[in-house]
């Protein structure tokens, strides 16, 4: 099938390897991938700040551009939740709610798409390391993604998954929250990093680069040895 891969702004600019890995994996599975060049963001920052008209200014073209897509795979659980769950709220009463509902039906987060839509868990990956998985909140609670990433990790050769305590606790990123309330965001991140550290893992893995950006930022400043990596990069490792 033809997969429309939605690459959010921060993955485009900061973590291109995540997107590239996804393209490679989807093509390896025999699908045609298209990446729309003319949309860059789902509008979540404005939406979460309460600026809904401004969020619609970002989201309107997204809704239009994805109308013809067969299936939309989003490279982040958080942006996936925005497209799948929050667009119906955002566009309620605007005359585009039906389009938002239609889009919702064909949006998938990447790991969930592999496991629950395509039924694939083994991608032939090899990644000899001890890792712990961080459940991004939007993926976990808005989209209900819990098992898919773990089933994918289970099939990675050489990889050992060690669950941390409070794996479902928020890392403290929270989008604009991280800049508006940096002290709370940082405190939450400290708790998360400590839990990850306690597992003795080499890497914190997640299906959300935004959480990882926040955690890696803290780890680097604190010179802590744990590293962060996106699930797709692990799956593309050979």
């Amino acid at each position: 099938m033809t997969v429309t891969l939605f690459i959010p702004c921060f993955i485009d600019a900061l973590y291109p390897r995540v997107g590239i890995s996804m393209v490679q994996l989807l093509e390896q599975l025999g699908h045609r991938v298209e990446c729309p060049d003319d949309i860059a963001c789902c509008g979540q920052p404005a939406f979460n700040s309460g600026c809904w008209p401004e969020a619609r200014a970002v989201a309107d073209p997204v809704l239009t551009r994805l109308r013809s897509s067969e299936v939309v795979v989003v490279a982040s659980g958080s942006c996936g939740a925005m497209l799948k769950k929050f667009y119906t709220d955002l566009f309620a009463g605007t005359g585009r709610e039906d389009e938002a509902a239609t889009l919702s039906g064909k949006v998938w987060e990447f790991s969930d798409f592999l496991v629950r839509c395509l039924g694939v868990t083994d991608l032939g990956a090899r990644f000899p390391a001890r890792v712990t998985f961080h459940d991004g909140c939007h993926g976990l609670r808005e989209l209900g993604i819990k098992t898919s990433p773990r089933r994918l990790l289970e099939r990675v050769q050489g990889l050992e998954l060690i669950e941390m305590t409070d794996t479902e606790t928020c890392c403290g990123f929270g989008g604009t929250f991280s800049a508006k309330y940096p002290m709370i965001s940082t405190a939450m991140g400290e708790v998360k990093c400590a839990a990850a550290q306690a597992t003795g893992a080499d890497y914190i893995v997640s299906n959300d680069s935004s959480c990882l950006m926040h955690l890696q930022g803290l780890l680097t400043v604190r010179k802590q040895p744990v590293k962060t990596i996106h699930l797709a990069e692990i799956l593309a490792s050979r």
Partner: protein
Amino acid sequence: MVEDPAMSAREDILGRIREALRKPAPFPGHGHAPTAATTHSPAPPPAGARSNLHGSPVIPLRPSVAARPWLPPGGVTPAEQWDRFRTASTELKTAVEEFDSAEAAHARLRELAGEQGWSGIASHRAPLTDAALSALSALQLPTLLTDGGYPVNDMEKCSVGITECDALVAQTGSILVTSRSTGGRALSVLPPHHLVLARRAQLVPDLGTALEQAKARYAPHWPSMISFITGPSRTGDIERILVLGAHGPKQLTVFLLP
């Protein structure tokens, strides 16, 4: 005519409520509810079920009745129910003692009075308590009966409050007492030891059954207080560490009689 301010507050509040309710709110569990598998197919209302006041068909079966199978079970057979009750009591630190005869229970009472050095007993008039008190009478302990009123300071000095109960609840290890049948409001909480004399037949599976039974027995002339006592008085307010006997009894004992 001068308007009664209390009356007007009542009408103001009810008026604001009615105005507010003109816009309907979404039924729960839809929209953004993140948890799946919670929709229930509406069942027809069972005979005797309380229909809602408005005759609206929104809730065909009271959800709290429909929910019984989803709550912690009280057990189906008597054996299961007793097992639940005992397990719950152990966990709660309620002492449960079983007797084959009233005489055996009374002997144990006399023993307890000695062991714990009871200096006074508070109780009320009822068949089981009457029998117990007469069995204890040889010890010549000051005894206070609450029926018809009592001086609070006297009860405060009693070592034990002995009461009957309305029901024992298997599901939770609870004891149902009321202000009418078990000696008033304070008797089961003021003395440091609450000793309950219960008949084995008083065990019910769960809270729902206990409430139904109480309703059948009392409604609409309810005792002014009915209370589910679940374990001795407790607190975790200091560092979440369990301490018994916060304000009420430190000890709760249930004597099971035939």
